[in-house]
């Protein structure tokens, strides 16, 4: 199989990640649930991984690296844990449902009002819209670092400056960029960073986190066992315990720790350069295909390694199915959990076929995928 669906999840993990999870499965106790060596070993692993992630993302305090099961959980904690009755939030049409649905929920349950920065047919926004939309009740800006459909990246540093100037919380969905693009929360002015472990971080599914920059009060999404202060009827208020009820995914965190090591040792710039070259090569090879329509702004280097397209009016699901069934090429078609982006691009009915490249893909695979598309386009029933 030629796997070009890395934006959904990476299936090729570094061998050290696989080893770390396997070793953890045979040795780890429950973190914060005992003082015997099994529990202490897990405590140490969890602590060191928090430190690594804090350094990796430029989060000033390691106790404010909160482990979650994915970006969706982190975004739910960030959004539902900080917004109050009557707040106003600015977001964009690039967002994934993991941002949109918690915001809609806040709209329904707490009367939060939402403003959406629009995008043009290239999927590009006008940064001035953020400032135009700010009102006295505006509490936060919530946005993605990169669209999971077009690959267009937002200038987070620029939005961070706007947020800082107006004293707004800045919540960033780094699902498509964590592990692929350098992120520094302090330099970029990010208040809350939400990331997942299983995409470009190349860690296990079931891992992710929320990094908190500064003194931000966040109400917990879930309450329960904490291993400490057992006689309190409420969740302890100290971070990270406040936002980590229940047993942590120690086995997954072991893998995530190894993944951070791998990216740091390989060099995130090396990974980024390779992935960008793959996407650029593929783009260059397919632009000549008759009736192909490629979405997103490919004139910019500030992109995640994604190419989304359609061939004439061919149903995107049929193209993706043909790629998989006849050519063994895995992509993703449909709505990509990004309904507003599809509306902005005009692809609600047709969907789009998304190719997303990862560290373990090769130029040869790009060439094969481009040729497969050429043949499919050629076989279109006219």
């Amino acid at each position, binding site marked *: 199989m030629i796997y070009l669906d890395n934006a959904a999840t990476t299936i090729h993990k570094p061998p050290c990640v696989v080893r770390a999870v396997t070793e953890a499965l045979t040795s780890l106790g429950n973190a914060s649930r005992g003082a015997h060596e099994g529990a202490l070993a897990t405590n140490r692993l969890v602590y060191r991984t928090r430190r690594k992630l804090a350094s990796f993302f430029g989060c000033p305090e390691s106790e404010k690296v909160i482990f979650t099961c994915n970006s969706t959980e982190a975004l739910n904690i960030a959004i539902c844990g900080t917004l109050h009755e009557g707040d106003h939030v600015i977001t964009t049409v690039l967002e994934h449902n993991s941002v949109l649905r918690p915001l809609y929920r806040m709209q329904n349950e707490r009367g939060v009002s939402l403003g959406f920065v629009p995008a043009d047919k290239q999927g590009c926004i006008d940064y001035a819209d953020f400032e135009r939309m700010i009102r006295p009740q505006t509490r936060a800006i919530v946005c993605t670092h990169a669209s999971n459909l077009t690959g267009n990246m937002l200038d987070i540093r620029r939005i961070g400056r706007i947020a800082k100037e107006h004293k707004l919380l800045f919540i960033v969905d780094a699902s498509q960029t964590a592990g692929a693009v350098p992120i520094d929360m302090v330099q970029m002015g990010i208040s809350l960073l939400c990331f997942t472990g299983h995409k470009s971080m190349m860690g296990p599914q079931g891992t992710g986190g929320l990094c908190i920059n500064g003194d931000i009060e966040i109400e917990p999404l879930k309450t329960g066992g904490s291993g400490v202060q057992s006689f309190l009827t409420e969740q302890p208020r100290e971070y990270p315990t406040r936002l980590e009820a229940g047993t942590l995914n120690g086995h997954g965190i072991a893998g995530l720790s190894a993944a951070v090591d791998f990216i740091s040792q390989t060099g995130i710039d090396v990974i980024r350069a390779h992935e960008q070259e793959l996407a650029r090569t593929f783009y260059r090879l397919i632009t000549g295909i008759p009736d192909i329509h490629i979405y997103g702004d490919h004139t910019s280097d500030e992109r995640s390694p994604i190419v989304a397209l359609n061939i004439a009016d061919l149903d995107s699901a049929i193209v993706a199915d043909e790629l998989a*069934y006849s050519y063994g090429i895995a992509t993703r078609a449909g709505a990509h959990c990004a309904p507003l982006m599809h509306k902005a691009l005009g692809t609600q*009915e047709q969907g789009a076929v998304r190719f997303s490249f990862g560290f373990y893909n090769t130029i040869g695979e790009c060439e*094969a995928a481009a040729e497969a598309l050429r043949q499919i386009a050629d*076989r*279109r*029933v006219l």
Partner: protein
Amino acid sequence: MVRYYILFDNYEQGLALHDLLDGAGVSNRITPAPAAARGKLCCGMSLLVEADMIDRAREVIQDNNAVYHSIVPMDNQLQAKRDRYC
């Protein structure tokens, strides 16, 4: 050439029928539900059944009270003949 897409409300329904059809020897394939067929339906999974198997598939569904949303015929948008990598 017409092909048939069996659509579902959710993955569980789809996988259940996939197992049933496989068990009954009815050739079927899990495939993304075409946007044109799906409409407002949430589930992105469908089962693709060729024209020569659809009657048998309907029998299996009836005999087992299998749950599904609808069966949608669609013309194949691609010509069958393929010249793979040549």
